[in-house]
């Protein structure tokens, strides 16, 4: 689903994100200005490799600045009203992020066969996400068994389909 969050972010978070964009835009602008303009190869200034990134750097800076100014007008620095916007990371999102990073950047491509890495990750993720409900229902052991079964079947199927049916290399 391509939708975004329902609650709009607070002016303060807009101030911070706009500020980050201004810094990024300025950095792009400086990087583009310093880039070799290939004048020695007879390339005119208007065809230099840094031209378009430079323009984009300026546009990003200006748009970021507009967001900063708008957030200030909406009272980003005034007092500290209760923040209605949702936190950036919930506990579940943090757990998901840690598990996803652990799988894709840690387990994969470092010697462990892919089906094993995928099965370990799937078991851990499914089991941990369902743990609160399972604990409340008093069937943690059953949850572990279900998670393990899904993990083994899904990891095996994905590996088989990619490698043998569609001839795609696995990491």
């Amino acid at each position, binding site marked *: *689903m*391509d939708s975004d*969050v329902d609650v709009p972010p607070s002016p303060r978070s807009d101030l911070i994100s706009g500020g980050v964009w201004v810094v990024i835009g300025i950095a792009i602008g400086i990087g583009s200005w310093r880039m070799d303009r290939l004048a020695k190869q007879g390339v005119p200034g208007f065809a230099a490799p840094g031209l378009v990134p430079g323009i984009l*750097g300026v546009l990003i800076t200006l748009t970021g600045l507009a967001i900063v100014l708008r957030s200030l007008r909406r009272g980003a620095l005034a007092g500290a009203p209760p923040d209605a916007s949702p936190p950036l990371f919930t506990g579940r999102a943090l757990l998901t992020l840690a598990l996803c990073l652990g799988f894709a*950047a840690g387990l994969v491509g470092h010697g462990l066969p892919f089906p094993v890495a995928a099965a370990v990750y799937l078991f851990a993720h499914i089991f941990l996400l369902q743990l609160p409900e399972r604990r409340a229902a008093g069937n943690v052991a059953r949850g572990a068994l279900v998670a393990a079964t899904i993990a083994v079947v899904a990891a095996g199927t994905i590996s088989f389909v990619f490698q043998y049916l569609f001839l795609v290399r696995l990491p």
Partner: protein
Amino acid sequence: MLEGLYALGRSLAAFFGFWPIVYALGATLVGILVGCMPGLSATLAIALLTTLTIKMAPADAILILICAYVGAIYGGSRTAILLNIPGTAANAAACLDGYQLARKGQAGRAMGIATCGSVAGSLFGVVCLALLTPSLGEVALSFGAFEFFWLALFGVMMSGSIAGSDPLKGWLMGFAGLFVTLIGQDGLHAHDRFTFGYNDLSGGLSLIPALIGAFGLSEILTVLSQPAKKALINSVDSVLPRIRDVLQYWRTILRSGVIGVYIGILPGVGEDMAAWSSYAAAKRASKHKEEFGQGSIEGLMAAETGDNASIPGGIIPALALAIPGSAPSAVLMAAMIIHGVQPGPMLMVNQPQFVYDVVAMTLLATLGMLFFGLFLVRPLLAIIRIPRTVIMPIIMVLCTVGSFAIASRLFDVYIMLFIGVCAFLLRRLNYPIPPFVLGVVLGDILDKSLRRGLTLSDGDLAPFITRPICALLAAVTVFTMLMYVPAFNRGYKSAQARLMQALRSSFGR
């Protein structure tokens, strides 16, 4: 004309064989399943399937991608009707009346209407695709670097204006997408830009892993950070549509088809806007306006016809101009390039048959959609009941394999992770992702067109605003941006009111 019909006949004959039909049905089913699952978008379905079909023959691979695209947009109506959650952004308008019909015990009828609307819209779009693409391609042959620069910028700015609720953030995401695609070797002089001496960056950021991150990992994080909704309906009435429901609203179908195709053709606008515009137009024209939002068959029909008609509509500029109409068609276009098809004005010169192949593929997808929509409703409903805590980790494994599969580089997996985490944070801060996708796809065209144009004009900017099409595109782009400047907007509206007043008084006299 006859030559076109002959080419279409050849394509239809080629694609109505056993294996193409098997591929089409399989891919449409996969698309519908993806669309059924809130959190998974048509864009992600196409990006993931691009990696899966990388070793297949180009025609088969593109057939699969188009069928998945059509299926995903259609499948999203299931969750819109049953959960009041649009499966894809394109189905948001279908929630209004579809969900109300489901609450009245008419979920099956609503799904039947959604199927009819989707099939009718898609068929209307297919006809337009066959008729308009060659003509637009012919017109585009006269386009030069100046026009392509404006088309690319227009697409990104339009997408930025419409996607999400904050145009400033939309434009910023578009600029960011344009910049990201410039990382790596410059297309004109092979000079490294922003690679910091890192060899893996010289080739640029791969599009598909970046999109898998933006639409896959970010969705996984978003979906799992929200509480799950339970399906409202456990049993449905008959999904076979009533002929009267369809015939009664033929005007709505036709109007929504035209709106859907038109909005699809506009660069960067997308299926969701097509659905909303069709819905609004149907409401304006309806004799039963009060029923809209309360379970109107006409409203649901309009929304679903509009979004599905915009799919072929979005493919038209992608094929003829290499400027995609929406985020999913941008990924589809990128997949075509990976498979050796070069969309753009020269397509009708170099590979004219391909356009008719795409027509045949979209037609197959439509038939697949009709088949599954009418006969496989109950098994499809089971998908909605699979817990997200099971689906999302499996999608993560697919995202990882998919990112790696394109070039067998772990670096691409890291790109997916980086873009995915950034996209998740940006979405939480209300920055829309579709303009970023358009930017990534159009960045190369914009960069090369601007510098080529300046080289041709020896640094003179005048041709960028004096050539007729450039002038039109520039005026629309600048006007769209200025409309979001409060002072300009107020001035424009007061001038418009004064003009209307003057006209009224002069006619009244």
